[in-house]
């Protein structure tokens, strides 16, 4: 980074981040999110176009601005 860039980035509003030791509530929520993501990914497999390779290959959209 250039030396002469003396911009005080602190001016651009900062909120202090609490240095976190993992909060058990956050961990629990994180686990729930992970379970939900797995469920979401399963769902995505179901809705994803079959024969993705073919589909992607065939999709062409010309004439755009």
């Amino acid at each position, binding site marked *: 980074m250039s030396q002469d860039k003396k911009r005080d980035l602190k001016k651009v509003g900062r909120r202090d981040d609490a240095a976190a030791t993992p909060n058990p509530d956050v961990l629990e929520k994180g686990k729930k999110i992970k379970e939900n993501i797995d469920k979401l990914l399963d769902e995505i497999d179901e809705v*994803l176009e079959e024969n*993705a390779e073919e*589909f*992607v290959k065939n999709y062409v*959209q*010309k004439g*755009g601005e």
Partner: protein
Amino acid sequence: MTPRILGTETEFGVAVKDAAAQDPVSNAILLVNSVDTVPSRNTLWDYENENPLVDARGFEVEGERERPTPDYNRLLNKLLGNGGRLYVDGAHPEYSTPECASVRDVVRYEKAGERILEACRVGAERTARGHRFVIYKNNTDGKGNSYGYHENYLVSRSVPFMRLVAQLIPFFVTRQIYAGAGKVGAENRADPAQYQISQRADFFEVLVDLNTMVKRPIMNTRDEPHADKTKYRRLHVIVGDANMSEVATYLKLGVTALVISMIENGYPVKELKLADAVQAIKDVSRDLSLKQPIAMEDGRQWTAVQIQEYYLETAHRYCAERGADPEMRDILARWERVLHLLARDPSQLSREVDWVIKRDLLQSYIDRKGCDWTDSRIAMMDLQYHDLRPEKGLFSALEKGGYVDRLLEPEAVDEAMVAPPSDTRAYFRGRCLQKFPEQIYAASWASILFDVGQAVVKRIPLNEPARGTKELVGGLLDESDTVESLVSRLSA
């Protein structure tokens, strides 16, 4: 002071499944003509004021003007009751929002457009049995073709165009860090990329030009104000991605409107000259850490975040000195927060910023399946993120699952599908179309042509985007039972 008025046009990509491929123009015509409700199937688009060949740098190029026959005009164009326009442009369907006086309104009218197109798709599949269509709100087919998302901002004509150019280029090169919609792979002979921030970045080849279809410019010089051209300019921005996230759309448009407003009001926005903006826009797109500095012409090195922070700091001072309405203050606060998080850890924006949302989704899939970024399912997800079908679109799945932040109430979008904004000339257009559907012979952004009977058509210009509002003409419209009485009241 120029009123804040803006609107967007979205070009949609169309894929056809399971049937002998038809030509895209026919598909686009079928889709547009499958629209659920329009006030009239007969109203023409008035092409009188269309002239995309005028260049803001002070010249006009040669070329053919688009002037379809009336029958073809009716096939290509649907004037909507919400004041917007659904049309076939080139080989794709396109939706333009009505003119809006707030950023929030543009977001909801744009979302309404997605719903309108989805309804068209359902209708088209019913009509053309055997054909299945998929519509994408994105900007590339992954085969070197790009289609646009265009933003339009009303600006005072008194601002020298080249000042806008100089002061906006670094802004537009870096805006993608929160406005980018993400993309797998590279395009247009640019350097390889596993995943990049912007859908469109690879397609920009020059700094400033009139062209929108090849050798695209970061700043487009189209000078077609669709308004009093002694007073107004319509800044036509083609550099952005189409977003799925409401919050990202709001931020993209709101911050841009604010920055333009500063420049327009003569507030000193220092010109940051990039050494090579056309290269930088692609470099920024490929730098997912957001830590790579960009070379300035004078040798300094700033990251994309720092460049945006420069505009933010200037905007803070501008708003403190000149005042800011609640919407602008909201946008300023969100912009600040987003830049703070982008500087520290972009993954914290996984509920708001499309490129982060998409990347996290694709990375999760890769981790789970043990595949990699070159897998065709990943390319499929890159597309399907933008699929308008509520039951198939990946962004839609994320939204329904509560994984992304919302900005709008669903009822607000419902309303925007059928009713115009109340605070721009779109109100007059939308209400006239709804009240006198068979007597609006033609209309455009800046005109309405009334069929007043006896083979007479009366043309009313609408050169002031901030007039024709509910406040100014609502009563007049309510009182006029016929177009003749409306026209005579207007002419009085």
